[in-house]
């Protein structure tokens, strides 16, 4: 997914570093960062852009789902890790 905003820079509040819009679009693998709308909406209509460039199924996953590692609490991560040993 390519857009004309890909090279625009923003300070990422998660990393404390300047990131491109392209990074935000792919932060969660094949889905955008869950924070993309509040981070960018002051600059342009990012919601409309996402509607235009994401496939309907991906848009639905993006709107309804959270990144898999964020679904997991600390305790859950501990339990998951224990199962791997």
């Amino acid at each position, binding site marked *: 997914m390519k857009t004309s905003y890909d090279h625009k*820079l923003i300070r990422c*509040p998660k990393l*404390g*570093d*300047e990131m491109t819009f392209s990074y935000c679009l792919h932060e969660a693998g094949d889905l955008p960062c869950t*924070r993309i709308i509040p981070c960018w*909406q*002051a600059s342009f209509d990012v919601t409309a852009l996402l509607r235009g460039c994401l496939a309907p199924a991906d848009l639905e996953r993006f709107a309804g789902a959270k990144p898999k590692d964020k679904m997991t609490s600390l305790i859950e991560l501990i339990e998951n890790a224990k199962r*791997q040993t």
Partner: protein
Amino acid sequence: MEQVKTILEDHEIPRQWYNIMADLPTPMKPPLHPGTGQPVTAQDLAAIFPMNIIEQEVSSQRWIDIPDEVLQKYLLWRPSPLYRARNFEKLLGCPVQIYYKNEGVSPAGSHKPNAAIPMAYYNKAAGTKRITTETGAGQWGSALSMACQMFDLVCRVYMVKVSYEQKPYRRMMMNTWGAECLASPSTLTQAGRNVLAEHPDSPGSLGIAISEAIEDAVTSKDTKYALGSVLNHVLLYQSIIGLEAQKQMQKLGLYPDVVMGCCGGGSNFAGIATPYVCDNIHGKQVKIVGAEPTSCPSMTKGPFAYDFGDLAKTTPLLPMYTLGHDYIPAPIHAGGLRYHGMAPIVSHLVREKFIEPRAYDQMKTFEAGVKWARSEGFIPAPETNHVLAAVVDEAMRAKEEGKEKIILFNWSGHGLVDLASYDAYLSGKLQAYELPDEEIQKALLAIKDFPKP
């Protein structure tokens, strides 16, 4: 010649940390297990934290002795000097005396080692051999790297790959202090391998880095994990800032009218504030102000509810002022101020009206930071600029009210590895941004079903 610095001798360093939990007029709500909704037990956390730290996390003992081994390391830069900002005072032309604790004098350049050093020490004492952590831009990772070296611990830092490549200086600091700093996702953990299998060119994310650090701690022998903010024991260790300040102000024969700090996860703010909150609880009247970004209004606009303790939702449910775990802080230039929820202790003190939160937009904060650099010389970290904006605001209020005030604040760190942010400000690439109320309401929907304290 006018006095600028007030110094404590090495032997005057405080020997105990102050634990505000002992003096809270109303008790804190316990953190909840995200799976069961029941209070988290020590055993739940034992896989990633040593028991001596867990005991401090839940302790209600007022004073906790600082071990000699920790004191000895603190003495490398502590007691930190208390400065009077005479040049800044002249620049502002307001009826205020401005005093600040310079935490930028630590080897890592910020307040972070105040917590990293005891964490390394207690891990060592508990038999830990390795510590893992995650880092974004690298401030916490570098502080922990230094602390682990001091106590002969192996340290592995998972640094988000894109920052690892883009911001090499903190990584170089970590390496210089002997830590292993890895680009995350890595091939060393299942979490990292899963991501790489699906996205070989993944630039990483904070969530992936946390997953890797925790998995590494849980699955490796004699290894624990360290978190640099939010939790009670972190705030406890930072209390040395305020305790030193009290002694230094006493040497000057002064007591502040206003105490201020910038609020991210709450650790540096709590460090300067909690000893003064104690004074207030016991009858003194000092105004205590926490400065935060307008675009991240967790204290000023959010309700009090249970929420997750960090952006990646990986710590137990903790009660705090919050905009919900889906809330996304706006593009603020303050890495340390990126948490969407305050530390539970700070949230509790706001709710109990011991702390007054104030929000400042990033243009105001950089304006204050540049004024500071051009008058006092030291270049502040971007997050430190938030408290400087609050100091300017307070000075102007004093002028309007025609009142003389003594202001004390925590200058939490220098910005010498954050100069790109200043470049962005000075070249006009930053924009002021205030979070609209409707956006806040939208974010609050995410926590509507959470238990209310």
